[in-house]
Each structure stands twice: as structure tokens, then as C-alpha cells.
């Protein structure tokens, strides 16, 4: 019998050549958060892509202009809802910079410890979710188990697992519980063993590696021009970390490394996050060793701090002070300030404008995700449709902060 592929040249198949337009999202299992991508495909290759955000827009900045300065904390929680403590601390530092308040040492250590715990939970979520989207469900469950252990600490400390609203202008809502250091030491060991186990499972998996390596590559110059910060920028080899470059709190007194990648591909972004989990653990250990057990966690400044509850119920002065702080808000001096911290995804900036009243005139957040997501279209165009999933997972888009 004659082989059927002999006369291929003569009767070549005419395939339709015009590009196909495909909608991914806004509700799509691979688009964590809600984002819509309109992709133009030729075959399975992406020619053009339009990333559309805004499906989670809640008018955050407009809402902030309606309440008092202290009422922004719950909104800040909901920016990056996997590491809310970092946003709390970032906003508190911004207002304190504008007021010229320096918080006590113990508070600074405490903020660092809680912030690093939040960072670990952020990275665990991102790496776990990314693995899950590529079909590795077990590491996701393990990482979420580890994240839950960290949230147990945060719940014990702040009373809430996720949206803590624990920061205050000039301190924290409460001092660390007596068991805090013990809990950290106990939990971090367990989290580390889970991370190591999950890592072993993923990084020895040929399929997983093949789907990440050399996928979604970005150059250093492009990443900087796109305004990338955080693990995504460090994966390209730029060692920019706000904690090292412009230390705030006590980051200049602790010893930690800034892990960087080499190629700027999806694999590097994955590995940088895993390495940062270990560095954050190192920081928490050092903080636990150095944080004093005694001393105030808030400044003694009646202009911004609420008086103790017993005094509110027993003296008229404290009642008036409490009333004025709650109803009019703490008065923040007239001026403007830009304060930046290292959030879960990169530089988290707050640009505050005050007209001297108890209500913010303008609160502008600089969410790290916004710039990173603006670069996604460049990362995925030219690639395969199936690469969208790992690339989008690795940039860790958080709808809350990206869409304001």
C-alpha cells in the first residue's frame, strides 16, 4: 500500500491564517484575582495581548479621603490580602514620617517580626498557587498548611487571621503576647521542613522545571523601565531591596542576604521567593533574640494615641481626648510625604498629602503589582498560550492592590 504522506507537497492543506481572538478571564481558574486578558493567537502562539485590570477596583483612594487618618488601616489591610501586616506597617510608617514620630525600639522589632511572618505567608501562597496551577496540587496543600501555622501566630497576636488592622499611628494596637517568641521558634522550624519537602518534590520534577525554565524571560533594563521591584526584579539580577538599600525600622541591624536570580525567567522568580522565605526566617530568629520583653510598644503622645480604656471610663480628660481622636481624628501636620517599604511583591509606597486636618487630603498608594502586571503583556507575547499560566502565577498579581 502507498504511504499516505507521499504527495503532501501537491495537496498542502489550506489552514485558516487569520489570528483568533480569545478571552481569558475575568473569571478564569488561572487568573488568580480577577484580570482579563484578550489574546490574539496564531495557532498556539500569542501575537498580541491586552491585559485589562480594574475588576476589583473599590475606590480605595477616594474612600481614604472620607474618614480619619486612622481609618485607613482597615483599607490598607485589604490592599495585599495575603500579607496585610506589611501594608499596615507601611502606612503607619508613612504617617509617622509626616508627623515626625519615632516609635519605641520594642515596637520596631515587633513590626519587623510580624512583617516578616507576613512576607513568608505571602511567598508561600504565591509559590504554592503557582505550583497548583501547573497541576502540582500536593505542594499547594502543604504550603497552605504552613501558611495556616503562621496565621495561627498572627491570630494569637492580633486577634484576626487575615485582616488584622493592627497598626496604629505611633505604635501597635497591643504589645506582643508572652508566648510570641516561643511560638515563632516552634512554628518556623515546622514551616521550614514543609517548605523543604515541597521544594524537593517540585524541583526534582522534570515537567515542572521544563514549564518554568526560559519561560517569560525579561531583561534587567526592561524590568527597571517597567518599574518592577521586589522578587520579580531581583530574579533578573538587580539586588534592589528596600530593606537593604534604604533600611527602615531595624533592618540595618539584622543580618540577611538579598537573593537574586540570573536569567529573569519564571524559574528564577520561583526560586527567589523560596530563598526569601529562608531569609525572612533568619530575620524573625534574630528579632526574637533581640526584641526586649519589657517596655512600651506605642509612643506616649496624646495627640495620636488613644488613652487607656480605664482612664476613658474614669476621667473626663481622657473621655474628651478619646472622643476627639475618634470623631475628628489625629491632626497630621500640613505637608506631603512619600514613604516606601518592601512589601510582599516589591516597593510599597504611600504618597500622603495632608491639609492639616484630621482627614487625609490625598492618599496615594504605589502598589508593586500595578507596574509588574503592566509588564505581563510583554512577558507573554510571542510565547505559547500554555505559558500564560506559569508566567502569570509567578508575578503574583494581587487584585486588591493592583486595582486599588
Amino acid at each position, binding site marked *: 500500500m502507498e504511504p499516505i504522506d507521499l504527495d503532501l507537497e501537491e495537496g498542502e492543506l489550506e489552514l485558516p491564517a487569520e489570528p483568533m481572538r480569545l478571552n481569558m478571564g475575568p473569571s478564569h481558574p488561572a487568573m488568580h484575582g480577577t484580570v482579563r486578558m484578550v489574546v490574539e493567537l496564531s495557532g498556539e502562539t500569542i501575537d498580541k495581548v491586552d491585559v485589562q485590570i480594574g475588576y476589583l477596583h473599590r475606590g480605595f*483612594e477616594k474612600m481614604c479621603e472620607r*474618614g480619619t487618618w486612622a481609618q485607613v488601616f482597615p483599607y490598607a489591610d485589604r490592599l495585599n490580602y495575603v500579607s496585610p501586616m506589611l501594608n499596615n506597617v507601611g502606612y503607619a510608617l508613612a504617617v509617622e514620617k509626616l508627623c515626625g514620630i519615632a516609635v519605641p525600639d520594642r515596637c520596631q522589632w515587633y513590626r519587623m517580626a510580624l512583617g516578616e511572618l507576613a512576607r513568608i505567608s505571602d511567598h508561600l501562597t504565591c509559590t504554592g498557587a503557582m505550583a497548583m496551577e501547573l497541576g502540582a496540587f500536593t505542594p499547594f496543600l502543604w504550603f497552605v498548611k504552613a501558611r495556616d501555622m503562621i496565621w495561627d501566630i498572627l491570630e494569637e497576636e492580633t486577634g484576626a487571621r487575615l485582616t488584622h488592622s493592627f497598626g496604629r499611628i505611633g505604635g501597635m494596637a497591643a504589645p506582643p503576647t508572652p508566648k510570641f517568641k516561643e511560638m515563632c521558634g516552634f512554628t518556623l522550624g515546622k514551616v521550614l521542613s514543609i517548605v523543604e519537602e515541597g521544594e524537593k518534590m517540585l524541583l526534582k520534577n522534570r515537567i515542572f522545571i521544563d514549564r518554568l525554565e526560559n519561560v517569560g524571560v525579561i531583561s534587567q533594563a526592561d524590568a527597571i523601565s517597567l518599574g518592577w521591584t521586589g522578587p520579580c526584579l531581583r530574579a533578573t539580577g538587580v539586588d534592589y531591596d528596600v530593606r537593604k538599600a534604604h533600611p527602615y525600622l531595624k533592618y540595618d541591624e539584622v543580618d540577611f542576604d538579598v537573593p537574586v536570580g540570573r536569567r529573569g525567567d519564571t524559574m528564577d522568580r520561583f526560586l527567589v521567593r523560596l530563598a526569601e522565605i529562608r531569609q525572612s526566617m533568619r530575620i524573625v530568629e534574630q528579632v526574637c533574640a533581640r526584641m526586649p520583653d519589657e517596655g512600651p510598644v506605642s509612643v506616649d503622645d496624646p495627640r495620636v494615641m488613644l488613652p487607656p480604656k480605664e482612664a476613658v471610663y474614669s476621667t473626663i480628660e481622657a473621655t474628651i481626648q478619646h472622643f476627639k481622636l475618634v470623631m475628628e481624628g489625629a491632626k497630621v501636620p500640613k505637608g506631603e510625604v*512619600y514613604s516606601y517599604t518592601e512589601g510582599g511583591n516589591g516597593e510599597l509606597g504611600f504618597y500622603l498629602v495632608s491639609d492639616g486636618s*484630621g482627614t487625609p487630603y490625598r492618599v496615594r498608594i*504605589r502598589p508593586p503589582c500595578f507596574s509588574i502586571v503592566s509588564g505581563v503583556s510583554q512577558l507573554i507575547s510571542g510565547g505559547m498560550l500554555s505559558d500564560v499560566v506559569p508566567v502569570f502565577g509567578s508575578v503574583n498579581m494581587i487584585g486588591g492592590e493592583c486595582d486599588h
Partner: protein
Amino acid sequence: MSQLVLDRLKTRFGAAILETHSAHGDETAVVTPESWRAVCQFLRDDPAMSFEMLTDLCGVDFPDRLPRMEVVAHLYSISRRHRVRLKTRVGDAELSPETVELDSVSAIWKTADWLERETFDMSGVVFREHPDLRRILMYPEFVGHPLRKDYPAQKAQPLVEYRTEEEAGLPLEKLAPFGPDEGMSFGRRTYTRSEEN
């Protein structure tokens, strides 16, 4: 440290730099809208400045002032580790206070593409020569610019009309839009459109 940047800007651009100040460790230069793009280009390309990163760009609305809109950019140099805040005041006060235009810097920094779209969407600054100036956070049918002070915070523009109480069969007094002062702090300033006064 970034005082150096301000000095250099003043010697290079002279009268185009309207004012400079430093407060809380942040250095600020206010420039004329005409020189906006030239200053940005200079700050990125000059080897002593090398601001490779546009960290942030936003608009701040001052309805009481004559050029009503302030466009604020925060620049950062990764190689030199310094920062500067660049501001300009725009708004054609005489002709129509609604029109606010500025040159786009999206050819200088790639991130300016989305940041300018956001500033246009939220504050209504129209960036000239922007490649693709669409709304980004709000939907295309949305009317107005929510972060302008005269946009009422309680205003809602639903694409699908809210149901009435008859349709729902239950009282709906707690559905949006809420009252303008519900849950608000005392002494809050509000702004209204001039034609409504």
C-alpha cells in the same frame, strides 16, 4: 544627598524650575508643564542623575487653585540610590477648568504607559501623544473622574439599574448609594461643582 539633583536641575533648566524644597527627607522640584518632558528626559539620561525608574505617577486635585491639577512623579535611581519628586501644575484655568493636559513621558519609561492611563482615568489628566489613552480601572461607560475633589464620593453609576423595593419585595434602605455623611468624621471638608452652588 538628593539636594545635588535639585541644584543640577536649577542650573540646567533655570526658570523652568518654579520652586524646589526639601521636607521629611523628600526633595521636590516643581517644573513648568512645558518643560515636563524635557526634564524627565534629562533626569533619565544624564549620567549623574540616571533615574532609570519611574516609581509612581499620580494626580492631586486642588479645586480652589487656578491651575487645579498637580501631577506628581516619584523617580528613583537604582544605580545611584537617590530619589526625587517631580511636580507640575496643569489645568487651563481661563478657558475651561475641566481640561487638563500634559505631555506624555511613556516614551521615556515603559511603566508610564499604565501610570498615565491610571492618572487619566482617576484624575482626568489628558496625556498628549500617549499611545493608548484608555480607562484602566473604571469601565469605558463611566462618566467623570473619581479622584477629582468635586466628584461626589457617594455617587454610583451602575451599568445595571438597582432594583426597586417593589421588585425586591423588601426594604432596601441600606443599599448603596449611602447618604453623603454616613459614618463620616466631623470637620470634613467637602467640595461641590461650581454650577451646583
